């Protein structure tokens, strides 16, 4: 479980995160939603240690990550997998090289063991024949799946996904969402997904946190978010005509 307590982060005079406290549960897909510029990405970057926080704690299973030194943070970072918006695959390496990279860096496995693990992860994301391809030869959906394979290669306890289905067609987006959910349940990972996509929220969201102007505004389940009367959440969730129609149907 990851727990945030009173998290604050400013850039100069701009107070981006304001006293955020939240819990992200193990074995669940925890979703952070909010408008562009609301502070979701900064929050995630603080949680993975790319930004230092001004005050507050970030506890990974009871261990405060925010107050750790760079060296100490490494022990937690080895348990973190991250799926970036664009995949962030290393261009100079093959798919297999990308997946084996964290294993080469942080384990003493032999080449054969690393290859076997890489193939296992590729099979898991339904790309059994992609090992020798370069990232430039992959489609957007394939890149995301390889990035998931790389993220799970070291058996992480925590998985962060930044807009996992942005730039994908709805069908491929659904495949990625399902994959994230399956992996979360299968390996009992604490998964945090940052998204704008309400389809993802409805499809896989279990614990939803709504961030508004740097504050944690609302928290609940996917059933609750559809029925909430909170104005800011309603404005966000029911922004499109389609969702407005859904709301009208729900009201009936």
């Amino acid at each position: 479980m990851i727990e945030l307590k009173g998290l604050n982060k400013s850039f100069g005079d701009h107070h981006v995160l304001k006293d955020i406290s939240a819990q992200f549960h193990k074995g669940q897909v925890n979703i952070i939603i909010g408008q562009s510029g609301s502070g979701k990405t900064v929050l995630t970057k603080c949680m993975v240690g790319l930004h230092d926080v001004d005050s507050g704690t970030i506890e990974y299973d009871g261990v405060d990550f925010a107050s750790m030194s760079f060296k100490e943070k490494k022990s937690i970072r080895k348990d973190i997998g991250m799926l970036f918006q664009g995949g962030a695959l290393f261009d100079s390496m093959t798919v297999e090289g990308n997946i084996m990279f964290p294993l080469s860096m942080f384990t003493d496995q032999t080449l054969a063991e690393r290859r076997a693990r890489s193939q296992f992860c590729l099979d898991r994301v339904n790309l059994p024949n992609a090992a020798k391809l370069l990232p430039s030869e992959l489609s957007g959906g394939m890149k995301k799946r390889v990035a998931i394979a790389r993220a799970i290669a070291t058996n992480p306890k925590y998985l962060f996904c930044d807009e996992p289905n942005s730039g994908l067609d709805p069908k491929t987006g659904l495949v990625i969402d399902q994959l994230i959910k399956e992996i979360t349940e299968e390996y009992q990972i604490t998964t945090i997904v940052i998204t704008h996509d309400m389809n993802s929220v409805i499809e896989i969201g279990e614990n939803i946190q709504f961030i508004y102007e740097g504050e944690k505004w609302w928290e609940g389940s996917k059933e609750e978010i559809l029925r909430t009367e909170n104005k800011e959440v309603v404005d966000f969730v029911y922004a499109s005509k389609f969702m407005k129609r859904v709301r009208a149907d729900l009201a009936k």
Partner: protein
Amino acid sequence: MERMRIVRRLFMDCKGNVRTNIELQLEFSAIGRIPKFSRNYMGIIHHIGRYVLWISKVFKRPEKWRIYRQRIFEEVQNLGYASLGLVAIVSGFMGAVLTIQLAYNIDSPLIPLYTVGLGVRDSLILEFSPTIISIILAGKVGSSIAGEIGTMRVTDQIDALDIMGVNSTNYLVGPKMIAAIICNPFIVIISMILGLVGGYAAGILTGEVSGNTFIFGIQYWFQPFYITYALIKTVIFAIIITTVPAYFGYHTSGGALEVGKASTISVVYSIVIILTFNLILTQMLLQ
């Protein structure tokens, strides 16, 4: 007319909309009272400070020596071996032109013709091979390093390394710097040899200097310390060629446009820094 243009630029934004008083007040309060030259110096000091803090991470212990060694070999191939063709062409022509120019300028019968070989040798060893070749490498290798690391930055690949717990500065920049420190002295020695070969060939082909006279000239009053001096400069330049573009690439933000800008500015800064250090090292070592 010019004054009108300046006033329009000051009070209108790029779309031609008049800027509000608040916008102007903010801009003036932020930068208007600081003279332009002070702002430029502050920018340079900011870069120097950030560079020093950043470069210290390169000297941290790598996560895995095996991978680090492998990366050094890859960079020797990318930065060293891949530059040999260009260096060979430039050096050969440089030596040839130097020979012809020196021979052309020596028209006094009191100056022996072997001074052409001597002049070409000393010019190549002291200045042309270490400095000019380093400047050429700053253009070729520097833009490639800034482009590569800048692209990795804007596509989150560096963040991915950091999140994994890899020291990204050490992993990306360290092997490049070591590879350049290993390769560049060899490249410069090859450049010196090819420059002399080019000069020899030009002397014979143009009939300005005979082969024996040229060879006597390049052997005459040889100072071995000149080679040491050239190699010391080369090693310092190798560090500049790799770390300055890497610094600009690493701190890029935005997209393709910013990566291109970082690449250009890194080459400009590298060349200026090389020339500055050339002056300092020459004064220190040849005094």
